[in-house]
């Protein structure tokens, strides 16, 4: 593909715009990303009154992810737009820190998410999955997002955190508003949920973040006098007794776990269902040979790429992919592109449940910020596929998906599905 493009210096090539959120209402603009990948080196992409280096090749995403000394998460922001210093401080979570803060905060939660500790949740995940699938089948289908993709991950993360399951719907609602905040349209007024904080001080500029902070604060007070065996108690303990995290770090951690723990996995489950419905032959291969469930889950993750990019900021003048980049420049790692890199994935636009290469970047390109919840998300996906396979449950898509207006999350707001018991 590269040979068909002339060798004009990367920075002056007419680059397709991949940041317009409305583009994503029709799905990831893969054609634009293919054009960007065809450029040797990095492409300069205008954005607002500045721009960023678009990192679209698998190898370059890996390099940026794994060299945090050169590519900072703490400077500016890890989303496209810069934040003012006070806003960044108010909104800073694990994801927007560098070592040593990152190391300290990550250690507080990492133990709960190791492969072994996550495996202890398998029965919980299975029980939730069985309930949801039974209901989906007995209703003869409906909105897959509402019935399965959204409730599964949120119920699981809320159980881990220790949040009462009755509050799941409320937190899903908040999470949906946060997703809007990643686009350019908010459907709720600035004072929704009794918010009085300036929106720029809230994650995703959303009043729903205020509500989530308040909820987390309520739980903190509750747990302070009554520690339980749950993740919130663990954080509260770290926050109050050991002073390992500040109050602001606590509420941002709570916010991050709720948001990251459900929005992304929901997206994977939604795109997974759409892919399986669109490729019944691929699902039949899994039904015939259940040992493909792991590779099918990895392929769903690659296919879905629920988080389409993360941004870093260059700490010293350096070179990336043969392009000189300067201190202070923004680099944006487009996982959506790296996961279709034709030099890494054979026939990347084919959904292949037995794909041998699972080196996708759905969870990021590695390095210290590698998704904390990766094994939890994998567990949820594999248990869901196992339970669907046990029922020989095949899916038929009954309506077009309504997609999130966002260049950041590859969200699906709704998509109709109907069960069939044989393909």
């Amino acid at each position: 593909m590269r040979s068909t493009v002339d060798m004009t210096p990367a920075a002056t090539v007419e680059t397709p715009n991949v940041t317009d959120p409305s583009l994503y209402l029709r799905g990831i603009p893969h054609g634009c990303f293919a054009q960007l990948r065809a450029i040797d080196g990095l492409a300069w992409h205008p954005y607002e009154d500045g721009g960023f280096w678009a990192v679209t090749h698998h190898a370059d995403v890996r390099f940026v992810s794994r060299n945090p000394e050169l590519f900072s998460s703490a400077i500016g922001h890890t989303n496209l737009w810069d934040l003012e210093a006070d806003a960044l401080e108010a909104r800073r979570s694990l994801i927007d820190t560098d070592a040593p803060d990152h190391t300290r905060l990550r250690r507080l939660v990492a133990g709960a998410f190791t492969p072994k500790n996550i495996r202890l949740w398998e029965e919980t995940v299975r029980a939730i999955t069985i309930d949801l699938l039974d209901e989906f089948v007995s209703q003869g289908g409906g909105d897959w997002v509402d019935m399965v993709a959204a409730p599964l991950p949120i119920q699981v993360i809320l159980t881990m955190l220790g949040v009462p399951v009755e509050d799941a719907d409320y937190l899903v609602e908040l999470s949906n508003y946060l997703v809007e905040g990643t686009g350019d349209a908010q459907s709720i007024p600035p004072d929704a949920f009794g918010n009085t904080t300036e929106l720029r001080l809230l994650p995703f500029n959303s009043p729903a973040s205020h509500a989530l902070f308040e909820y987390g604060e309520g739980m903190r007070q509750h747990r302070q006098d009554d520690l339980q065996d749950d993740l919130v108690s663990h954080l509260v303990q770290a926050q109050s007794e050991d002073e390992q995290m500040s109050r602001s770090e606590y509420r941002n951690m709570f916010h991050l776990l709720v948001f990251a723990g459900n929005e992304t996995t929901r997206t994977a489950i939604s795109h997974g269902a759409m892919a399986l419905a669109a490729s019944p032959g691929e699902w039949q291969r899994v039904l015939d040979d259940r040992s493909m469930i792991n590779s099918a889950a990895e392929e769903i993750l690659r296919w879905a790429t629920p988080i389409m990019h993360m941004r870093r900021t260059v700490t010293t003048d350096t070179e990336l992919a043969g392009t000189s980049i300067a201190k202070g420049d923004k680099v944006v790692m487009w996982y959506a592109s790296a996961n279709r890199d034709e030099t890494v994935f054979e026939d990347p636009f084919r959904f292949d449940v037995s794909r041998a290469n699972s080196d996708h970047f759905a969870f990021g390109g590695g390095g210290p910020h590698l998704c904390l919840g990766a094994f939890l998300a994998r567990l949820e996906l594999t248990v869901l596929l196992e339970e669907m396979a046990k029922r020989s449950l095949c899916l038929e898509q009954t309506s077009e998906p309504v997609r999130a207006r966002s260049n950041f999350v590859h969200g699906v707001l709704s998509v109709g599905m109907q069960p069939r018991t044989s393909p």
Partner: protein
Amino acid sequence: MAGGELMRVVIDQELCIGGGICEMLEPEMFELDNDVVISSVVGDGLLPRERAEEVADRCPGRAIALVQEEI
């Protein structure tokens, strides 16, 4: 794959970020400790060169080094 050359994997525990990828790829060979969240090698740590390179390459912390085994 000439002669099935073996490499020994070694973990630099200073670099390990506890991502658990090694344990996912080779569950018999790596073990991520649940408390300190650092991986270590269980057993002899020997893998065919190609697989060893893949495991090292996938390590998010670049913490896995390969040592040539004399046989």
